[in-house]
Every structure is written in structure tokens, then in C-alpha cells.
């Protein structure tokens, strides 16, 4: 221990005091004086220097924090109860200091922070919404146990140059697969009988297309939670039904309804069915959202096992080994053994068949085959959305990079000073990174608000049925914040390195040359943003044009003049149909009316028919077959190129109609009325010859964007509910027509509700998918445009700042506001043109690709590109003009006096 030095001891003591929070220099000096006074006193009393110091300092220092607090109370402007250093640490004070600085920086440049946060949060919000949608769409059917081992058996038949992929397959396939292949451990089959069925209990009746006839082994393949009843015997007996919870609730108001009876009407007369089980709803996320299962034996007996003509959706559950490849390899033999002969006989001698297995979880996003029970989702669209999602995030990151490097000038001084004070590059990079991460995380939090706000609209747009509570699950929140974090990291990386690398000596004397390289980068990034926004815009305009084209394409009949009525579905009312129709035709607004079995809004698949050509040889022809009542061509507004309609007065007539396309396709233009259709029995033997009595001018059924199929038209004038009434009326008198029709209806069918539908509406609904896609794309385009605008604003505000002096000098020398405006907006025009050089071809390629899905589509015209350019130019000018005007109108003296 060294010799005690009083002066040193006192100055140590003073330093200690200075470090104490709340004591200011004046206070410390006063206390130091006080200490000396005490020491002097003690020395006089004869104490040694060390003892004197110890006693005196102890006296003063023992109550140091009390003293500091008291002094704080005296001097604070707003004395709160406790001084800041005594308060429990706030969230803000606990943040790492780099975060604190980041926060302060944001507070200082509010507009900059606002634009960044807005851009980031909008892009996070929409990316998240897209992600939720994509997730929803791609996780169909995954909730079933063993979903990875369940496959649907499908097949495609090729013959005479046509390929018909079928979603359903002959009845015996399922049982045969199960019986002879060890790879298959279970099978089940389902069918929909008729388009809609009705289940009724007392007053309540539910008409639904979600009622299926189901094999008794359904639950062996598809797991379902039973609420009441037993899986094992639920579907074994004929005339039994399994209801979903919702269905039971709607019908009975309760779920314990096992043993109750319901009235079921499908295609046969109504029957009583017994409820054997109630299951939990199968949910929305399945390609088979069934609501009720009728037992298979209600409709089919053992003989059906050999009925290759009756098809059903067939699902198999593979054994644990899940060896789908081995099973697929054996299918050619299976086809050879069981199927080919039958198909050769029935379809065509050169038929080729392929049996395929489609994984359960893949079905919803797969292509739609013929006879799909429900429409599918669209994988291509999902891929497009995911791509856009990534672009959105990249664009937001670009904006951040742009704005962060644009403010480099301002930060340069800070960087220089920090470097002078000894910060190294690593610390600076870390500091700027923490800034961008903080910003991005904050934006992620803001995006939650956006999501909550936009979710209902988004749900409406996409049909996504998700509750906010489900959306904000822990894992989704984690996702949002990890998107934020990733974005912060990615966006922050370049600016942080860029800022940290600024030379300190240049920094203090802020020089503009240094930012030259950065300015190319900024411009390049803006061009990139423009490109994305413009590409999307081109695409959307093309989609819109195509939808318009599909809706307005000449169909061979005037769809706006057609109205459909559903006939009542009870037998007694049927007797009235003829009288009703007669009166309908007499209405002044109505041109024509008929019963029609064909649905103009659906496409009919082409099947193989045997015909005799006008020259007398037998030919296999591929024709779509429809059935209609008398006067079909007249009613829809088509006409006969040759011949006439079915003869109303000859009930025994064996006649068919063909359409123009069929006539031309087979070269029967010379005398088509000599062609004959050959009726065959079940063994394929020709039993009767039917005359072609007329050739109808082409009309397009179903979707409008492909070619008219060759068609054969049979007569079906029965009074059955499936036959709708088509009314051709004067569209300008819609209300009057509907009123008149409903009055007539009430007269003839007093017990049945009057329901009508305009054919045009139903046809337009065929393009619902395209319209959803269009809406989604438009929404996302608005978002990309918004982000681009933010980017443009960021760049223009940077440019105006850099050019402040230039503008000032120009103004001093007499430049007009307009010329300065031009100076500033010119560079954006160049950027925009550069973007279009890229966006044009990409947009062209993407739209072309999209259009190729449609057999008939619009041509890509220059006008779309020009329009897109004008729109982009418009929003650019809007963004630029305000900033530019501000710069151009600023007082030049202020700019020149700076520094």
C-alpha cells in the first residue's frame, strides 16, 4: 500500500461523485468544498490525513443517492415523484442503444420513416394474405388420416384422336383392385345421383348437390369423427344415410338423430331413409365437401359390380408400404385383362386406356377431368400469386435500399463522426442493420392492423373463409415477424455496408460525387419496380380483355334474351306443364318457349357414335350429344341450314339433328339429310337407323372460348324436373316478362315457388375463376403501383435535395419553374422508358402464355402497352410534380446560403 495522498483521494472521491446520476458539476464542487472544510476541521483536531479523509468522506458520501434525489427534486422543471435513474427501466431504456438511436433517427425524419414503414407494411400485409390464401388452397384434404396413402383412380381414354380424361371410373375397378393387389388395402366408391337431391324432415327440406351415394367401406378410407352412431354399420343397409353435423342441425335442430327417418328424393321417387350416424363436418378444405352420404345399396345391388358403364369416383387406401409405383406398373395388365375388350366394343376398336392414381392431397389443385364432382383450384394461379408475393417483398426491400442510400448524404456526417470517435465498420454495419430491422419489425406490427382491416375484403375476393382469430395464430404471427425480420436483414444489408464504407474525411465535407455509383443503383432499382408494376398491369389489361371477349363472343344465339325456369319437381304439377308453356308463348313479351334437357351453360363432352354417311358407309364419329324439346333452334334464335325440326305431329318419328360443325367435319355438306344415326344395343349390335332430319346453324354451349363441338341433338320432350323451360323474350321488358311469367306460374303451379334465372348470368359465372384472378391481380397491381410511387417519391426527394443548389442557381439566372420541372421529371421519363423496354416483352410473354390456355383469345394489341405506359407516366408525374414544384418554387437564397 502506497503513501496516502490527500489530494488524490479527494479527486478520486470527486470523480466518483461526478459519475453519480443527478449530481451536476456545480453540486459536486460545492460538496467538494464541504469535504475540504470537514477535513480541515478534523486535521486541526489532530487526526491523520487518512483518518480525516475517511471520516469526512463517509459523512458526505453515505447519503449520496438521497442527496442526488433531493437535488433533482429541487432543480427538475417538472419534479415527478422519482428521478429518472430511480424509475424502473422502461421498454425504451432497456433497448440496446443502437435501437434507441434507430428510433431517434426515425423520429427525426418522420416522412422518411413513414414512407418506409408504409411500403414495408403494405407489402408484408399483402404477402401474408397471399400466403394465407395459397396455404389454404394447397392444404386441401390433408386433414384425413393416411391422406398420403389415399389415391383416386382415374383414367383417360384415347380414341379417334380424342383424349377424354375421366374423374370417375367403372364400378368394378375398385373392388377388383382391392381383391387382387396386395398394395391396395381398402377401396371406396362414391357417386352423385342426379345434380341435386333433397333431404326433408317434416317442414324442413334441404336441396343440395353435396349428397353422395357412398360405399359401405367409406370410413375405412376416409377418416371422419363420428358424433353419433357406429362407423362399421353406418352404410351397410339400403335406405340409410349418414349426416354431417351441420346437416343434422339444419334438419333436426340437434345431432343425436340416429334412428330418425328422412325423406330422400334423388332421381327415383322419394324414399324414406334412416339416419345411422352423424359425423363431424368434413370441412371446407376438401375436394369432396359432402354433407350427406346415402348407402350404396340404396341404389346398387351386386349386379352393379359388373357394370362397367356405371362409373363412380373410386378411392383406394394403399397398404403401409405405400408402393404406388408398383401398383401403377401393373395397371397395363389390369386394363388388358378387365377393361379393354369392353371399351373396344363400346367406344372404339382402337381405344387406348390409361389407368392413373391421383394422390388425394393433389386432387384439388390438379387439372379438372371430365365429370369432376366439384370445380378445382388452379395451381398455375397460385404459382403466379406466390411469384408476385416475392416481388412485392423485393420491391419493399428496394424502396428501403433506395431511401436509405438516398439519405446517405445526411448520414455521412454521423458516420464520419462515429469513425473519428473510433467506431469500426463492423459496429457501424451493425448499427444500420439494427435500424432497418427495427423499421421492418415495426412495419410488420403495422401490417397486422392492415391484415385485420383487409381480411373481410380479401375473403370476399377469394372466397377464403378465415376468421381473424385463426389468422392471428401464434405460428402466423411468428411468420409475419419473421418476414419482417428477413426483410429488415435483406433490405438493411446493402445500405448498412454502403453507409459504413463512406469515407470519413469526405463525410464531414459532404461531397456529392461520392453518391454517383449509388445513384445508378437507385435508378436501376426504380426501373425494376416500374418493370414489375408495368408487367402486371399489361397482364391485367390482357386478362380483362380476354374476360370481356369471352363474355361478349358471338355464340350463335342471343344469350341476353334467354331466361330459364326450373320445372316443379312433383308429379302432379307436371300435368300442367304443357298448358303453362302454351300460355307462356302467348305472352306479348315472349317470342318462344320450350322444354330443354340440355344446359346451354355447360359444355358437353364428345362421345363416339356410329353413323351412316350420306353415301351409305358406316363411320365412327365423335359427337357431343344433347337432348332438347321441340323448337330448340327457333327458341334460342338459331335456325336450320338444312331440313327442319323434329316433327311434332309424328310421335313415332325416329329423327335426330346435327349441327353445322358436325356436318362440315365429316364432309356431309352435299346432302346431309341422307346421313343416319345408328342405334346399338348393349352388345353393340345395330338395332335401328335414325334419320338426320335437320342441320342446325352452330351455337356455342358452355364456355365461349373454344370451338363449337360437333353435335348430335336428340328429342327429349318429357315432363320431368330436369327439363328446364327456356323462354326467349324481349330483354327491354325484363320486369314485365318476369311479372307475367310469375303470374302464370302461380296459376298453374300454386304449390311451387317461382324461380327464374337469366342464362346470361349463368354463362357469365363460367368465368368466375378468371374474374377472381383478375381481381386478385388488380389488387396486387395497385399495391405494386403504390410501392413504386413510394419509390419514385423517395428518389425524387433525394434528387431535389442533391440538386437544390443547381436549381437555385438556375433560378437566380432566370430559369422558369417549368424548365426546372422538366429538368426533374426528365430523368423519370428515361427510367420509365427503360422499364418499358423490359416490361413490354415480359408482359407480352406472360400474357401470351396465359392466353394460350384459351383456345380462342384476344389478340395482343399495341394499345394495351400504350395504355399501360400512359398510366405509369400518369402516376409518375403525379408523384414527381408535387416534389418538383416544391423544389422549383423554393427560395433560392436559402439553398445557396446553406453551409
Amino acid at each position, binding site marked *: 500500500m502506497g503513501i496516502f495522498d490527500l489530494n488524490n483521494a479527494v479527486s478520486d472521491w470527486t470523480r466518483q461523485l461526478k459519475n453519480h446520476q443527478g449530481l451536476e458539476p456545480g*453540486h459536486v*464542487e*460545492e*460538496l467538494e*468544498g*464541504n469535504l*475540504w*472544510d*470537514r477535513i480541515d*476541521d478534523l486535521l486541526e483536531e489532530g487526526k491523520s490525513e487518512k483518518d480525516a479523509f475517511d471520516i469526512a468522506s463517509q*459523512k*458526505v458520501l453515505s*447519503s*449520496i443517492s*438521497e*442527496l442526488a434525489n*433531493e*437535488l433533482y*427534486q*429541487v*432543480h427538475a422543471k417538472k419534479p415527478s415523484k422519482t428521478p429518472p435513474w430511480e424509475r424502473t427501466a422502461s421498454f425504451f431504456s432497456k433497448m440496446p442503444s443502437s435501437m434507441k438511436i434507430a428510433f431517434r433517427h426515425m423520429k427525426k425524419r418522420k416522412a422518411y420513416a413513414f414512407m418506409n414503414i408504409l411500403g414495408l407494411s403494405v407489402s408484408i400485409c399483402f404477402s401474408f394474405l397471399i400466403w394465407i390464401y395459397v396455404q389454404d388452397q394447397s392444404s386441401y384434404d390433408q386433414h384425413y388420416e393416411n391422406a398420403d396413402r389415399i389415391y383416386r383412380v382415374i383414367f383417360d381414354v384415347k380414341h379417334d384422336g380424342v383424349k377424354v380424361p375421366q374423374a370417375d371410373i367403372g364400378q368394378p375397378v375398385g373392388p377388383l383392385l382391392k381383391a387382387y393387389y396386395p398394395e391396395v388395402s381398402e377401396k371406396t366408391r362414391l357417386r352423385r345421383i342426379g345434380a341435386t337431391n333433397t333431404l326433408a324432415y317434416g317442414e324442413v327440406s334441404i336441396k343440395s348437390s353435396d349428397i353422395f351415394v357412398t360405399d359401405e367401406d367409406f370410413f375405412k378410407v376416409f377418416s371422419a369423427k363420428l358424433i353419433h352412431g357406429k362407423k362399421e354399420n353406418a352404410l351397410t343397409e339400403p335406405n340409410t344415410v349418414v349426416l354431417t353435423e351441420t346437416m343434422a342441425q339444419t334438419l333436426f335442430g340437434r345431432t343425436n338423430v340416429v334412428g330418425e327417418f328422412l325423406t330422400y328424393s334423388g332421381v327415383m321417387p322419394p324414399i324414406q331413409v334412416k339416419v345411422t350416424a352423424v359425423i363431424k363436418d368434413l370441412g371446407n378444405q376438401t375436394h369432396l365437401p359432402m354433407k350427406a352420404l346415402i348407402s350404396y345399396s340404396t341404389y346398387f345391388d351386386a349386379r352393379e359390380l359388373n357394370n362397367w358403364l356405371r362409373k363412380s369416383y373410386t378411392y383406394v387406401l394403399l397398404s403401409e408400404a405405400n408402393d404406388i409405383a408398383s401398383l401403377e406398373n401393373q395397371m397395363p395388365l389390369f386394363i388388358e385383362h378387365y377393361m379393354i375388350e369392353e371399351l373396344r366394343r363400346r367406344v372404339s376398336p382402337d381405344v387406348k386406356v390409361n389407368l392413373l392414381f391421383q394422390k388425394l392431397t393433389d386432387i384439388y389443385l390438379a387439372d379438372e377431368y371430365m365429370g369432376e364432382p366439384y370445380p378445382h383450384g388452379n395451381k398455375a394461379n397460385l404459382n403466379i400469386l406466390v411469384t408476385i408475393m416475392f416481388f412485392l417483398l423485393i420491391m419493399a426491400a428496394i424502396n428501403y435500399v433506395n431511401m436509405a442510400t438516398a439519405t446517405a448524404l445526411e448520414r455521412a456526417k454521423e458516420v464520419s463522426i462515429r469513425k473519428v470517435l473510433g467506431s469500426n465498420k463492423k459496429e457501424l454495419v451493425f448499427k444500420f442493420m439494427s435500424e432497418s430491422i427495427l423499421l421492418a419489425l415495426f412495419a410488420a406490427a403495422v401490417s397486422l392492423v392492415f391484415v385485420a382491416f383487409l381480411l373481410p375484403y380479401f375473403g370476399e375476393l377469394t372466397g377464403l373463409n378465415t376468421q381473424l382469430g385463426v389468422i392471428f395464430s401464434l405460428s402466423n404471427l411468428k411468420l409475419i415477424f419473421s418476414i419482417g425480420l428477413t426483410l429488415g436483414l435483406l433490405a438493411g444489408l446493402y445500405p448498412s455496408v454502403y453507409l459504413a464504407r463512406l469515407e470519413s474525411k469526405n463525410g464531414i465535407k459532404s461531397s456529392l460525387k461520392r453518391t454517383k455509383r449509388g445513384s445508378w443503383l437507385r435508378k436501376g432499382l426504380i426501373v425494376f419496380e416500374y418493370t414489375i408494376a408495368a408487367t402486371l398491369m399489361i397482364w391485367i389489361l390482357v386478362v380483362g380483355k380476354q374476360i370481356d371477349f369471352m363474355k361478349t363472343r358471338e355464340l350463335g344465339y342471343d344469350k341476353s334474351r334467354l331466361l330459364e325456369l326450373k320445372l316443379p319437381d312433383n308429379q302432379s304439377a307436371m300435368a300442367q306443364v304443357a298448358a303453362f308453356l302454351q300460355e307462356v308463348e302467348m305472352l306479348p313479351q315472349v317470342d318462344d318457349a320450350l322444354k330443354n334437357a340440355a344446359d346451354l351453360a355447360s359444355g358437353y363432352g364428345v362421345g363416339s357414335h356410329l353413323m351412316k354417311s350420306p353415301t351409305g358407309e358406316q363411320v365412327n364419329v365423335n359427337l357431343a350429344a344433347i337432348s332438347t324439346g321441340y323448337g330448340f333452334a327457333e327458341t334460342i334464335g338459331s335456325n336450320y341450314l338444312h331440313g327442319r325440326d323434329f316433327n311434332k305431329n309424328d310421335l313415332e318419328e325416329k329423327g335426330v339433328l346435327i349441327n353445322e360443325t358436325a356436318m362440315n367435319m365429316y364432309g356431309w355438306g352435299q346432302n346431309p339429310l341422307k346421313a343416319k344415326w345408328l342405334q346399338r344395343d348393349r352388345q353393340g349390335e345395330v338395332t335401328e337407323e335414325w334419320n338426320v332430319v335437320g342441320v342446325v346453324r352452330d351455337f356455342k354451349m358452355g364456355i365461349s372460348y373454344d370451338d363449337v363441338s360437333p353435335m348430335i341433338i336428340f328429342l327429349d320432350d318429357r315432363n320431368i324436373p330436369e327439363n328446364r323451360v327456356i323462354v326467349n323474350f324481349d330483354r327491354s321488358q325484363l320486369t314485365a316478362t318476369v311479372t307475367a311469367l310469375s303470374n302464370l306460374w302461380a296459376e298453374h303451379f300454386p304449390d311451387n315457388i317461382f324461380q327464374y334465372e337469366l342464362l346470361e348470368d349463368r354463362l357469365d359465372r363460367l368465368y368466375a375463376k378468371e374474374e377472381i384472378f383478375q381481381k386478385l391481380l388488380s389488387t396486387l397491381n395497385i399495391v405494386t403501383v403504390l410501392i413504386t410511387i413510394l419509390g419514385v417519391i423517395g428518389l425524387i426527394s433525394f434528387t431535389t435535395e442533391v440538386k437544390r443548389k443547381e436549381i437555385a442557381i438556375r433560378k437566380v439566372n432566370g430559369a422558369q419553374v417549368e424548365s426546372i420541372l422538366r429538368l426533374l421529371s426528365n430523368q423519370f421519363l428515361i427510367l420509365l422508358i427503360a422499364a418499358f423496354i423490359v416490361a413490354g416483352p415480359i408482359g407480352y410473354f406472360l400474357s401470351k402464355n396465359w392466353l394460350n390456355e384459351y383456345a380462342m383469345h384476344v389478340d395482343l394489341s399495341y394499345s394495351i402497352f400504350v395504355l399501360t405506359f400512359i398510366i405509369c407516366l400518369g402516376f409518375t408525374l403525379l408523384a414527381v410534380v408535387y416534389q418538383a414544384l416544391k423544389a422549383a418554387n423554393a427560395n433560392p437564397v436559402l439553398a445557396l446560403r446553406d453551409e
Partner: protein
Amino acid sequence: MAHKSLVAASTKPLVLSILSHGKSYGYQIIKKVEELSNGELNWTDAMLYPVLHRMEKEGLIVAEWVVLDNGRKRKYYAITELGKQEREASKAQWMNVNAAFNALWNGDLNIELG
């Protein structure tokens, strides 16, 4: 030791009264008070300095730094006009209290109670 509340109440008048005799500094004030009270009033620095600062803020006293011969600095306090008024006011109050106690404790007083 004097009671805490008594110390609190008497600090200000005592400081004002001491400073009426001339300017002084923290340690000297503490010493003087200790002497006058026969060691009963043992003020701490933590108690006195905040009081001095508050009084200075209230304008009752003013402070000035004085550099001593040995180079040290010392902060001297002096009473102001406002301080004198304050002292007179509190003097009257303390006298009243004092008079009351004197009358009670002299022994020849007879008070009719209850």
C-alpha cells in the same frame, strides 16, 4: 437528537437566522447550528444542501462562488430582502410557540380543563 419533523420545520428559519448575521457556507452553517443547539441538531449534508438550493430557487437566499487563497472554491450563501421578510414571519410564529410553551411550563398557570 431532535425529532425529524422538528428538524424539518426549523431548518429554514434557522438557516435564514444564521445568514442574517452575514454570509456563510454549507459546512459553517452545519457547525453553527450544532454549536447553538448544544449538539442536538446534527444536520447532514444530504439534508442541508437540497434545502439551500430550494431556498436559493425561491429567492430567499443568493449564492456566490468565492475562490479561497489556497485555490479552492467555496459557495457562499447570503440572505435577500425576501429572505429577511420570511425570517421575520417565521420568527413571529416561533415566538408565539415559544411563548405558549413558556406559559405552560412555568408552573404558576392554572388552566381549567374538561
